[in-house]
């Protein structure tokens, strides 16, 4: 078979799967999700699984992971252990509302959350879409539908459930919500997860996503998260990617920011197979600010690709991106950052930086900034570096009696720390610091309780 024929066959596999299980998909979800499927699958069909020739997926070959044989999770499956017991997060002083999702679905035995502020709704997207559709319909797919990414369309076609959060106007939701995404199966599975987070005017909220695996099988997750940040709202989204190295995922996050809002997104990638994170931010109101951080520590044959796309659609907004990678052994990293300043978005400040350290000759990093600036009174910058450990600094530390291994650790920690220090939840910051250090020492960097699985 030629490459093209193979690609068509691969994409057909997914469209056929869709048509064969259409009624099952509908039955397991809500009409708000079901009504999006037809357009989405057509959109997917147009491009199919993106190959190397797709400019946006130039550095990540998705065909490789989509081509495996998976059992597709198209309905909620009972879990034979109590995940509430198995997944006690052990981060000291990290006081969160814990929500478990398993294989893309809201876990049926989640403990009800206590003492939520008035009007806050946290739960299953499917359930809320059925029971309180007014909280969902204004927002669901309003950002994702505009994307021309076929993987996002594939998610929309298959999505049945996921995490949902609604914070009404004028509510400071102090305690972070911790969403623990668990992949667990005895066979290779493909899961689709759809999340929706809506934070109203003048409100504040923090969400921590922890991606975990409970079994060492081939997994593929196609995850889409839409976040709406209301006027004057402050939203923090932290993501800790800590799966086994056979777990692959595509995570597409969409953020729409209204005027004067403040968004912080920080993604820490520690373990995993092929990981692609798409991040889209739309500045839809003036004086919005987005700080976007990413750090990735890879070894073996890991592959991590962050693709960001910041749309400055309004004047006087600020976006700031800092992505850092430490690549060991044969791992491959990619960063592509697009900033688009539209014609009238004057006084835009948009900064982007990507710094990378390669620890071996066989590790590889691809980095590509892309600035499209259609306004004339803006301040934009981008910078990328790829290098090794600073030998001068290493010698300085050794000349003060610090052993070579420790000195290297100090320098790599320092490199990562610029990103870690921006985490605004202190116990989480301390834990990530600790995990990063473990990771850099070449140890498995799972949290203790998550380590057992």
């Amino acid at each position, binding site marked *: 078979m030629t490459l093209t024929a193979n690609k068509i066959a691969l994409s057909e596999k997914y469209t056929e799967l869709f048509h064969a299980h259409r009624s099952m998909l509908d039955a397991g979800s809500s009409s708000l999700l079901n009504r999006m499927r037809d357009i989405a699958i057509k959109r997917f069909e147009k491009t199919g699984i993106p190959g190397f020739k797709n400019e946006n997926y130039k550095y990540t070959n998705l065909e490789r992971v989509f081509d495996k044989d998976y059992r597709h999770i198209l309905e909620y499956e009972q879990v034979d252990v109590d995940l509430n017991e198995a997944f006690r997060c052990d981060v000291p002083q990290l006081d969160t509302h814990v929500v478990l999702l398993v294989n893309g679905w809201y876990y049926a035995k989640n403990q009800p959350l206590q003492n939520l502020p008035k009007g806050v709704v946290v739960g299953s997207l499917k359930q809320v879409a059925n029971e309180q559709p007014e909280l969902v319909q204004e927002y669901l797919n309003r950002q994702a539908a505009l994307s021309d990414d076929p993987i996002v369309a594939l998610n929309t076609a298959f999505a049945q459930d996921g995490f949902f959060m609604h914070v009404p106007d004028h509510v400071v939701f102090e305690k972070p919500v911790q969403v623990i995404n668990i992949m667990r199966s005895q066979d290779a599975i493909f899961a689709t997860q759809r999340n929706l987070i809506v934070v109203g005017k003048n409100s504040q909220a923090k969400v921590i996503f922890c991606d975990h695996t409970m079994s060492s099988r081939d997994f593929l997750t196609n995850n889409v998260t839409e976040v709406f940040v209301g006027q004057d709202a402050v939203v923090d989204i932290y993501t800790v990617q800590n799966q086994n190295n056979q777990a692959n995922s595509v995570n597409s996050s969409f953020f729409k920011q209204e005027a004067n809002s403040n968004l912080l997104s920080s993604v820490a990638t520690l373990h995993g197979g092929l990981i692609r994170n798409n991040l889209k931010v739309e500045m839809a109101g003036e004086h919005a600010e987005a700080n976007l951080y990413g750090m990735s520590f890879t070894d073996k044959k890991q592959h991590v690709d962050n693709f960001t796309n910041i749309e400055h659609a309004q004047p006087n907004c600020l976006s700031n991106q800092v992505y850092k990678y430490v690549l060991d052994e044969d791992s491959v990293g990619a960063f592509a950052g697009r900033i688009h300043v539209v014609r009238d978005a004057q006084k835009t400040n948009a900064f982007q930086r990507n710094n990378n350290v390669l620890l071996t000759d066989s590790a590889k990093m691809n980095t590509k900034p892309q600035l499209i600036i259609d306004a004339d009174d803006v301040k934009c910058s981008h910078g990328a570096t790829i290098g090794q450990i600073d030998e001068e600094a290493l010698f300085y*530390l050794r000349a*003060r*009696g610090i*052993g070579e291994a420790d000195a290297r650790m100090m320098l790599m920690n320092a490199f990562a720390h*610029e990103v870690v220090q921006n985490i605004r939840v202190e116990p989480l910051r301390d834990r990530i610091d600790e995990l990063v250090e473990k990771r850099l020492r070449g140890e498995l960097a799972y949290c203790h309780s998550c380590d057992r699985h």
Partner: protein
Amino acid sequence: MLTIKNLRVAIEGKEILKGINLEIKAGEVHAIMGPNGSGKSTLGNVLAGKEEYEILDGEIWYEGEDLLELSAEDRARKGLFLGFQYPVEIPGVPMVNFIKTSVNEHRKFKGLEPLTAGEFLKLMREKKELVHLDSQLTNRSVNEGFSGGEKKKNEIFQMAMLEPKLAILDETDSGLDIDALRIVSDGVNALKHPERSTIVITHYQRLLEYIVPDCVHVLYQGKIVKSAGKELALELEEKGYDWLKTHSL
């Protein structure tokens, strides 16, 4: 304390030191002077254990040990200290962590317990006063955003914290105004001890008015062409290095 015999060193195939002989006894202060490019900093770096240099020939004995067999960190732990000409900025490594790790590595090597937080802070306060190091600076990353003078003071502060047996100060005077020069020299002098030796590498005689050497060596084109008492520094200052060129021929 230190004996250098016929040391020949190259970097990237180019021979920089062409047979150095030097003997330093406990308690002595030696000055190494010479024009730019004569190999002064190379000598300091080789003694401290920088790896990019190729040792072509010769021996270095430090306290009865073959120095060239030791790693940079072990040399430091055994009491050898290099005050850098250009102290490097290390963003993200806090000064306090750095100094604490360094001090405790030295203690571990001697079989001592690490300092308690209280002991460490007390020691740090004491030594900071010695060199008038701004307290705020130790809250920053190593050398980050320090002025030239502050970087040099920071080197002497580290030296005071570590109390080395053999301190090599590489152009510690360069870039210092007269007040800073006095502070740095006072710091060095305060650490003077019959068991401690110092090598002062400098371009100018100025520093030697404050740190009085027992012996002055002139390094020129990779060789020590002249050694004498402290009066040699004055003679050099007066006649310039050009005098040396004709003199050495």
